[in-house]
């Protein structure tokens, strides 16, 4: 099986589960963030703990990735300014729209047209970021400054 087919299947499982859990609905996310419902936190916590347990097992029992043969390994990094600043912007958008990238994609899939302006914004944000990266790359001194919050393309794409 190719990695593309695998990605597609994982996406379908992810999309159906997000939809069935009600995450496509802004009400469900909002009730969670307002502490009116515990569902969001239990759902998120259960997902994270399952992933954590699974990765823990993989790291010990699965030395090679099944499809690519790559070594199963990852690196983590220490928090930088950009993790706080970026997540601050992200949190404002999340709190206003009660949608994050996964739910935005399932809104599109379910044919909910409110997802369109959010998607156009999301794509714009990513394109703006790529432009900022290109500008920073053309001016290496600025990109290396400790205050820089624009990670280089390799650093941004390779780490958590």
């Amino acid at each position, binding site marked *: 099986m190719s990695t593309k087919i695998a990605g597609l299947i*994982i996406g379908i499982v992810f999309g159906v589960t997000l*939809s069935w859990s009600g995450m496509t609905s802004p009400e469900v996310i909002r009730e969670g963030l307002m502490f009116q419902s515990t569902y969001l936190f239990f759902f998120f916590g259960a997902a994270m703990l*399952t992933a954590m347990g699974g990765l823990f097992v993989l790291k010990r029992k699965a030395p090679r990735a099944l499809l690519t043969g790559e070594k199963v390994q990852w690196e983590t990094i*220490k928090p930088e300014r950009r*993790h706080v600043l970026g997540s601050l912007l992200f*949190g*404002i958008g999340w*709190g206003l729209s009660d949608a994050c990238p996964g739910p935005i994609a399932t809104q599109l899939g379910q044919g909910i047209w409110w997802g369109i302006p959010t998607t156009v914004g999301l794509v714009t*944000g990513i394109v703006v970021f790529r432009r900022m990266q290109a500008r920073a790359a053309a001016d290496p001194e600025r990109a290396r400054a400790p205050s820089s919050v624009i990670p280089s393309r390799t650093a941004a794409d390779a780490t958590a």
Partner: protein
Amino acid sequence: MLHTQLPWWIGGPVLGLCVVAMRWLMNERLGVVGAFTNVIDTVAEHRPSFGPFGFMLFGIIGGGALFAVLAGGPDFHGYGWLTDAFDSTALIVGILFVSGVLIGLGAKIAGGCTAGNGLSGNAMASPASMVATATFFATGIVVTLLTAALF
């Protein structure tokens, strides 16, 4: 049946297993902003084909569509607090667009969204992801409580 919310103790672990599957099959960190980025980069750079992340995005959209078909249409009326608080569709569309920009740009700067940092990064025990997750949850909660108080 599909209109009944899946119990969290089923939905959560299935989502977590998607993270594990990405790692086990191809040693990748599952992230949805990364999926959008792959589609954008592929188009912008005229690459011959989308990568596994691009296909994952198509899968997520397709999963939403599949759900809507099986459930007989989306269970959706209005758009949450925005349609309750405002009458102007143009204003709501504007707010959603700006939110989208903040989500996209913010996630790229922070190196991940609710999936990339929140699920995958924390599961990888990444200190940066833990800080990112604490920040976006705290910000999301404050913004939600503020809008609830103001409108």
